[in-house]
């Protein structure tokens, strides 16, 4: 029987639009961490946008089609069994499409019609398994495996792990979660805590792990987003965190952007640093700050990481 460990050694990689732009550091650090851990990533050929948080508001079935095309290419053209998406939005939309195509005949009909007109294979539910970068490392390597490969340590760095909305909600599109020990929880997710803890970080008690940063309206309702982000930043600081670890490009850039906006527009400065969890893991695996793209972050953490002896 193939275990998750075997299955995740070589997976189709779906970076998504943000990781080619503002979240380049997440792309870079994910690939570098994969390399350091001996996990293979094969980028999905000619991938397209999954629909993000916008296309569903024009028409939800179009979002299902867009996400299904990515999975169809991975399954039919690349013969891959697993698609890994580091972006919460991409991950969420692929899981949502998977759920809808398994349960809703109307979605199946639209996706089939559009796929045929577009001239590619129709994605059939169950052809691939979609996973997040956290699942990939958690199940492909595990905490013990990670510990064996460490070249450094996060040296007791105090981290608040921020998972955001799309990784756990709504519950029904993540049938593999909430299945007891070893599985992820939708109410109290812990994979990021587990991995960073194994790398030497101290996870602070952070009550807003799955709070919303207002990412969907980060530009269209900026004041609301600034209020939501400021609450997250302040709560992390009050919990004693030096760093907020992120796993989503929308959350990450939302936190960074509204940290600046809160400071400049509302005179509400906060000090907590914001880093992708893959950047922190990379540093513990002995990669340089440049290799994991620390210089690409808006939140300037290089000096701080050097001071702590982590970079």
């Amino acid at each position, binding site marked *: 029987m193939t275990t998750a460990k075997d299955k995740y050694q070589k997976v189709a990689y779906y970076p998504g639009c943000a990781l080619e732009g503002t979240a380049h550091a997440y792309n870079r650090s994910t690939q570098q961490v994969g390399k350091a851990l001996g996990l293979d990533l094969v980028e999905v050929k000619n991938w397209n946008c999954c629909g993000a948080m916008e296309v569903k508001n024009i028409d939800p079935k179009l979002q299902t089609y867009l996400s299904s095309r990515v999975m169809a290419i991975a399954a039919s053209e690349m013969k891959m069994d697993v698609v890994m998406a580091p972006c919460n939005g991409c991950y969420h939309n692929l899981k949502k499409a998977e759920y809808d195509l398994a349960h809703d005949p109307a979605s199946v009909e639209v996706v089939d019609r559009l796929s045929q007109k577009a001239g590619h294979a129709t994605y059939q539910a169950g052809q691939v398994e979609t996973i997040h970068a956290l699942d990939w490392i958690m199940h492909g390597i595990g905490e013990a495996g990670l510990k064996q490969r460490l070249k450094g340590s996060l040296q007791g760095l105090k981290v608040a792990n921020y998972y955001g909305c799309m990784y756990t909600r709504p519950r029904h599109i993540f049938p593999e979660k909430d299945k007891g020990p070893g599985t992820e929880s*939708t109410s109290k997710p812990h994979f990021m805590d587990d991995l960073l803890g194994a790398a030497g970080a101290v996870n602070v008690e952070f009550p807003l792990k799955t709070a919303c940063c*207002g990412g969907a309206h980060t530009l269209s309702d900026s004041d609301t987003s600034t209020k939501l982000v400021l609450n997250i930043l302040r709560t992390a600081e009050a919990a004693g965190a030096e760093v907020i670890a992120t796993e989503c490009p929308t959350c990450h850039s939302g936190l960074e952007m509204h940290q600046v906006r809160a400071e400049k527009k509302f005179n509400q400065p906060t000090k907590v640093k914001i880093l992708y969890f893959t950047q922190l893991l990379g540093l513990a695996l002995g990669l340089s700050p440049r290799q994991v793209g620390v210089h690409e972050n808006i939140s300037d953490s290089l000096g701080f990481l050097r001071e702590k002896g982590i970079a």
Partner: protein
Amino acid sequence: MPIHEQSLIRPEDLTTHEQLVIDGVDVSGHWSTFITSRAVTDYNEAMQDEVAALPGGEHIHRCWQCGSCTNSCTVNALNPEFNPRHWIYLVRIGMESEILRDKDIIWQCVSCNKCTYACPRDVVPEGVMKALSHWLELKGHVKPSPSMVFDEVFSEQVFRRGKIEEGRVMQRFFRRTGQSLNQPWLIEMMRRMLRHLPLGMLTKLGLATLVAPSTSGWSGARAAIEEYVHEQEHKRRRALGLDALIEAAKRDAGPATAGEGARS
């Protein structure tokens, strides 16, 4: 946990008489507080069906008003007037005039899905909020919200090229909503973003804003999507009876336009 209530009795509907004697009993002041009687005659009995015909609104009929949506709502925590449970109730009983009181905030749902996670009846309140925002726009009660403009700018690029480039989406959104890019916090953010970037990466970012990234072999998908969008728009217009509304408006405006023409 409490069901988030919304009182339908508003201060403007209360009347107190300073001097009032009824049947020889003096009930002046506080003792004579009355709620102005109101007979509602303007129900829109089609409202639930109209919202249910828009994407996201399909399951509104399942709601049994438990209040879990409002109780878990991210936006409600910032603004108590933002009350999904109450709006679902109003749509279901067809009180269009009451919904219109909140027409300018309904679009502010941030799609965090806490309501959908909490809902015991699978109403998908997040979807209902989006359907209701669409309904308000389609019926002409509100102008397209900033969120809708963003969704359109974003989706246009996806449909055309298969993927988006964030800088381009941001520029178009700011232009279409008439906002300046010259805001101190934005400039400060760009400064911090570019501070440590190596030249190679700066060039790449610059090029991406000039030559938009696209998915190769996208033309087939683009044609299929455009056809589908057109078909769905037609369906929604019909479900809301928009063409009949426009025809009626034209008929009403008809004689006036003709009159103006005669004068000139």
